[in-house]
């Protein structure tokens, strides 16, 4: 009598096994330490710079006889913060208003961390399939599970482990930011923790799928890692080039906007739409629709990467 196993059961069995294997290996601990070191270093540097700036501002206010608790002064301070953020983060008014509640330290460390996330994901999962293809241990698996389910199970296992790493580090960031900023209200702490977790998780899913794809098309883990990093640089380059050109016909229309005037019109502006990185900004957007669209685009990219990984593994000799 042949055992009857559904696809979900197969995926579940691969997911369980791979998650247990990953947690048993030292790599997860090393990655967690690496992630925490990065967050810690970023917090230290950004926190130091921020506290220096605050101290200077307070000193200047004191010498000018300005009361920092005055509502007018607070509003002025927020306007200054918004101007600063509009230059370095976004010029979206709604988003800037929303980011005012977030301590600058947390915002900057989080943004830095997001840049680090795709690299960390590549380091974590580069050999998930390539590490089985080279030594041919995948041969023990494919007579037992469908290749499709093997990929999905391994991908979900990576998602689970990375979600846990992300949760630990995000909570650490928020806790430190709360300690450094007394005016970071408890309600905001909860809301922002959830928003940061959701946005970083959604962002990570696309890059986790990319790593699965890279690992499924080459037999060597090292080559998969290099390929993954090269594609990441490609993704960042597309976004950078695209975002630094103006869409054709938009400079004149926006001639009141100084930043738009600085940019040259070019079809290359459309390149940003091909880069998943471009959509990451909206994952922190306060408008639910903007967040949903960004999340869907990330999931769409994840599906494309996973689809290509399926195709690669299904058609290849093992």
């Amino acid at each position, binding site marked *: 009598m*042949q*055992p*009857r*196993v559904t696809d979900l*059961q*197969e995926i579940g*069995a*691969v997911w*369980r*096994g791979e998650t*247990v*294997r990953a947690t*048993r*290996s030292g790599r997860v601990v090393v990655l967690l330490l690496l992630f925490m070191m990065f967050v810690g270093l970023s917090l230290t540097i950004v926190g130091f710079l921020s506290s220096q700036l605050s101290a200077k501002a307070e000193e200047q206010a004191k010498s000018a006889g300005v009361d920092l608790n005055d509502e007018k002064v607070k509003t002025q301070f927020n306007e200054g913060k918004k101007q600063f953020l509009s230059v370095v983060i976004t010029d979206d008014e709604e988003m800037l208003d929303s980011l005012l509640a977030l301590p600058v330290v947390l915002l900057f460390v989080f943004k830095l961390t997001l840049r680090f996330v795709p690299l960390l994901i590549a380091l974590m999962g580069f050999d998930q399939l390539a590490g*089985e293809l080279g*030594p*041919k*241990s*995948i*041969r*023990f*698996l*494919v*007579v*037992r*599970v*469908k*290749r*499709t389910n093997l990929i999905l199970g391994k991908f979900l296992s990576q998602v689970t482990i990375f979600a846990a790493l992300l949760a630990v580090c995000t909570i650490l960031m928020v806790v430190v930011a709360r300690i450094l900023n007394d005016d970071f209200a408890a309600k905001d702490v909860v809301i922002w923790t959830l928003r940061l977790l959701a946005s970083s998780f959604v962002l990570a899913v696309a890059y986790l799928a990319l790593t699965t794809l890279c690992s499924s098309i080459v037999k060597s883990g090292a080559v998969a890692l290099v390929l993954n990093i090269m594609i990441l640089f490609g993704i960042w380059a597309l976004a950078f080039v695209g975002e630094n050109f103006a869409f054709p016909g938009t400079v004149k229309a926006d001639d009141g906007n100084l930043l738009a005037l600085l940019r040259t019109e070019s079809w290359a502006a459309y390149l940003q739409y091909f880069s998943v990185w471009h959509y990451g900004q909206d994952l922190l957007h306060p408008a639910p629709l903007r967040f949903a669209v960004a999340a869907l685009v990330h999931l769409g990219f994840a599906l494309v990467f996973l689809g290509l990984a399926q195709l690669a593994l*299904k*058609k290849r*000799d*093992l």
Partner: protein
Amino acid sequence: MSQPAIRLEKLSKHFGLKRAVDDVSFEVQEGNTYGLIGPNGAGKTTTFSMMCGYLFPTAGTIRILGADPFEPGALKGKVGVLPQDAILPPQWPVGALLTYFGQLSGLSNAEAEAKRVLERVQLPETWSLYANQLSHGMAKRVSMAQALMGSPPVIFLDEPTAGLDPKIAASVRSIIRELKGNHTVVVSSHNLQELEELCDASAILDKGKLVSAATMADLTGRLAEFRVQIAKGEVPLFEVKAQSGVKDARLEANKVLCVTFDGQAVEPEEIITRVVGLLAQRNVLFTSVWLGKKLEEKVLQLT
């Protein structure tokens, strides 16, 4: 006549310009132990890998218990495989690894089954050892154990005794012998004596082509000839040839008397007894008698 459990039709596999397997067709009957024989580069492992669904054929078809091995999930629960060069994942303890394999196969009692197969290959003490702590022989037997999990009806064993010491190799052969009848087993090996002893039938490959596919009796001529190793004395060839049922008798190199007989008309044991009786009467001393040709001789002749 039993049904073919495995059927290969006009199977080819090309790697660029190299034709690793070229137009190979044969069948393996259900319950048989079948050998894949050939020198290095003959295409044994490539054929084996296509049967297991690892390599896609360039042309031709394969059916394992009526299923196409390239259909997703087609081999689940039907096939156990000991691949030749696959390395056990090093980060797993053996017991957990086998249990994981059992769960992937959908076995409800995966852990108990893992223990059972480890017992069967006489390695229960490796349960807690990591796969990268195993010696070559142990790893081979653990790989064999995973192929036996869930008692699949078809079992593929690629070089199951390669690199094993004689005692362990004998125990592996004994396991294969026990599988006979209840499982269809395909064994690829360079050890022709082992295959001759274990297999009911064999395919001989050379340079990617099938040079022979037949029962072991037909391959070795067990039903058509026997040989006697002469030690001393003059063989009366005319008298031997005159025995009823004997088709021909000749002396081969190293004083080996080869007698060809009509396997349909006379039982091998009857004709052997008559011929060696005649030799004894004529004071011809001999050291051994064996049926047919050694498989090794046949393979050397064909490849």
